[in-house]
C-alpha cells in the first residue's frame, strides 16, 4: 500500500538529517503507529507522504501512485488530520466541513448527509451551526478529523490526533478511527500516547534521530524486549531517558 524507499530529509540550515535512509512498507487496512520522541522525524515523514514537503532523497508510492505522476489522484486517495486544527475559527463546524468537502468535489445532499452523519457519530450534531472559535480543544480535534474523512480516503494520515483532548473525546476519536479502518481505510498515525498506540495499532515503528529503530506488532515488540511490560517500556529501552529538547 505505502512503499517508502530510502527516504532522507535534511531541512535548510539544519545540521542533521531529520530522516535518514528510511525504508518502510505499510500494507492495506493496517493501523500503523509512527512513534518516537520529540524531533524524531515522525511529522516530517507524514508531511512527505502528504506532499507537504519534498524529501532530500529517496522515493515512495501510495497504492502504486506517486505525486510526480498522479498528484490529483493521490490527493483524492488520502486524507490528512494535521496536528494543528486547520479550521476557520469564524465559520461554523458545518460551514468548515462543507467547504473542505467541496474541495474534494463533493456537493449537494451527498455532502450534507455525510457531514451530518459524521457530526452525529462524533457527538457534535448539536454544535453543527456553532462557530469553531467557541469550541473546546476536543471538539476542534473531532471537527479536524471529520474534515479529513468526508471523501472516504483509502489512506488516512493522522498527526497526533488525540493530543490535548480529554479521555472522552479521545475514546470517541479512537472508536471512530477503528470503524473507518473496519470499512477499509489504512491508517497511519503518530502519537506520544504509547498506551493508546499499544491497543489501537496493528503495527508500530519507533523512529529516533530520523532512523527507523524497530517495527512490528506491539505485542511482539513487548515480548521481545527483555523486562518490558508494555510499549512504553519498549520505547524507553530503545530511545533512553534523556530529554530531547531541541530548537
Amino acid at each position: 500500500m505505502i512503499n517508502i524507499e530510502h527516504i532522507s530529509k535534511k531541512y535548510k540550515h539544519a545540521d542533521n538529517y531529520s530522516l535518514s535512509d528510511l525504508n518502510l512498507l505499510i500494507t492495506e487496512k493496517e493501523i500503523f503507529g509512527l512513534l518516537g520522541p520529540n524531533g524524531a522525524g515522525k511529522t516530517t515523514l507524514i508531511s512527505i507522504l502528504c506532499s507537504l514537503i519534498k524529501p532530500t532523497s529517496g522515493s515512495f508510492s501510495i497504492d502504486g501512485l506517486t505525486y510526480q505522476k498522479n498528484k490529483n489522484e493521490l490527493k483524492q486517495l488520502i486524507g490528512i488530520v494535521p496536528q494543528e486544527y486547520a479550521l476557520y475559527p469564524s465559520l461554523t463546524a458545518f460551514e468548515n466541513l462543507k467547504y473542505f468537502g467541496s474541495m474534494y468535489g463533493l456537493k449537494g445532499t451527498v455532502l450534507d448527509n455525510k457531514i451530518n452523519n459524521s457530526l452525529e457519530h462524533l457527538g457534535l450534531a448539536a454544535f453543527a451551526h456553532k462557530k469553531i472559535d467557541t469550541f473546546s480543544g476536543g471538539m476542534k480535534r473531532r471537527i479536524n478529523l471529520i474534515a479529513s474523512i468526508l471523501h472516504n480516503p483509502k489512506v488516512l494520515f493522522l498527526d497526533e490526533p488525540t493530543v490535548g483532548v480529554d479521555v472522552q473525546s479521545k475514546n470517541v476519536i479512537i472508536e471512530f478511527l477503528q470503524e473507518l479502518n473496519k470499512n477499509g481505510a489504512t491508517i497511519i498515525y503518530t502519537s506520544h500516547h504509547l498506551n493508546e498506540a499499544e491497543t489501537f495499532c496493528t503495527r508500530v515503528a519507533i523512529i529516533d534521530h530520523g532512523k527507523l529503530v524497530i517495527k512490528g506488532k506491539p505485542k511482539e515488540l513487548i515480548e521481545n524486549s527483555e523486562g518490558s511490560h508494555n510499549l512504553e517500556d519498549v520505547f524507553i529501552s530503545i530511545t533512553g531517558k534523556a530529554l530531547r529538547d531541541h530548537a
Partner: protein
Amino acid sequence: MHKLKASAHKEFLLLIRDIGGIAILFIMPLVLIVTITLIQDSTFKTVSDAKIPILVVNNDQGKVSETILKGLEESNAFEVNIKDTEDIAKDLVFKGTFQLAIIIPEGLSSGLEQKVAQNVEGIIEKFGLEDETEGPPNQIIESKVVKLYFDPATQMTFKSSVKNGIDKMVAKIETESIYKAFQEQITDDPTETIFETENFITFKEILPKKDNEELIPNSVQHNVPAWTLFAIFFIIVPLSINIVKEKSQGTFVRLRTNPVSYATVLGGKTLVYLVVCLIQFVLMLLVGVYLFPAIGLPTLDISGRLPLLFVVAIFAGLAAIGLGLLLGTIAKTQEQSAPFGATFVVILAALGGVWVPVFIMPKFMQTLSNISPMNWGLNAFYDVFLRHGSLLDILPEISLLFLFFIATTLIAIVYNEKKNTV
C-alpha cells in the same frame, strides 16, 4: 467551477463574520474621501470664514500702502493685523504665531511718486514737450524693498502664491502711477481720459464641452477618482492578511493536501474582493452625488458615465487584487504583509499622481509613474470624469490594469508552486 464557487462562498462568509473588518473596508474610504475633498475644496474656492491671519507693519502711511492694505482686505484670503514695529512682527512670525508679516518701507508712496515723475519727465523732455528752461538736476531715488517674513514651517506653495499676489499688486500700483504722472504732464484736466488703464490682454480658459455645455472641473471631480482609486488599492492590505492568516491558522496546509489548485483558491478570493471593491466604489459615488452637496461641496457629476466608470473600477480592482494576492503569497507573517501593503499603496499613489500631478514631477519620477497601476487607473478615471473619453480612449489603461492583474496572479501561482513542489 464547483470548487471556485465554494471558495468564493467561504471567502464571503469569512468577510461578513468580521464586522470590524467590513466597517474598516467600507467606512474608512468614505471618511477619507470626505475629509480630503473638504480640505482640498478650500483651495479651489475662496472661503470667507477661513481667512489667514497676517501681520502688516505700515511704515509708509501713504497712498501705495493704502492700496496694498486695501488689496489684501479685498482678496478675502487674509485677516490683516497691523503692528507697530518690524521686530515685533518678525518675532511673532518666526515663533509661528502668524504665517506672514509684510513690512512696508517708510516713504514708499513718496519715493514711487518721485521716481515715476522723474522717469516721465525724462521721457517728456526727450520728446521735446517740456519747457526749455533747465530745472534742478535729477536726484537719485533709492529703490524700496517690501520685506516679507514667513513662518519657517510655511509651505512653498503658499509662499509663492503670496509673493506672486503682492508682486502683481505692486506692478499694478506702479503702472497706475506712471499713467497718472503722464496725465499730469500732458493735460491740466484730471477728468480727461487719455489712457485706458484696464488690461488689454486677458486670459480665458476654454473648457471641454459636452452637448454645448462647458464641463467645469471642480474639487470633487478631481478628488473622487483619485481617492476612490487609493481606497480600492488599499484592498491589498486585508487581502494579503487574509492569505497570510490561512497559512498561520493551518487551513492552507490542509488545502495543499486537497485536490484543489492554488489558482482556484485565489479565484475565490478574487471574486469576493472584487465585489468589495465595487461596493466601495458605489458608496464613494453615492457620497459624491448625495452627501457632498448636503455638506456644501460640489456635486459629483456622473451623468452618462456610469457604465464606463464601472469598467475602470473593475479593472482597477483587479489590478489591486492581483497585487494583494502576490503580497499575501510571498509574505510569511501579517507583520510583513500589513505594513508593506499599506506603505506600498502610498508609494503607488504618490507615483500615480494622486497627490502631486505627474506633469510637475521630475523626469525620472514621471518615467516611474508610467509603471504605476494607480497612474493607469487615475488616467482612465480622468478620461471618463473630466475628458469625457469613450471606451476606446480608456482601452490602453484598462488593458494595462488587466495585464497587471494577470501578471501578479501568475507570479503568485508560480511562486507558490515552486515553493511547495514535491
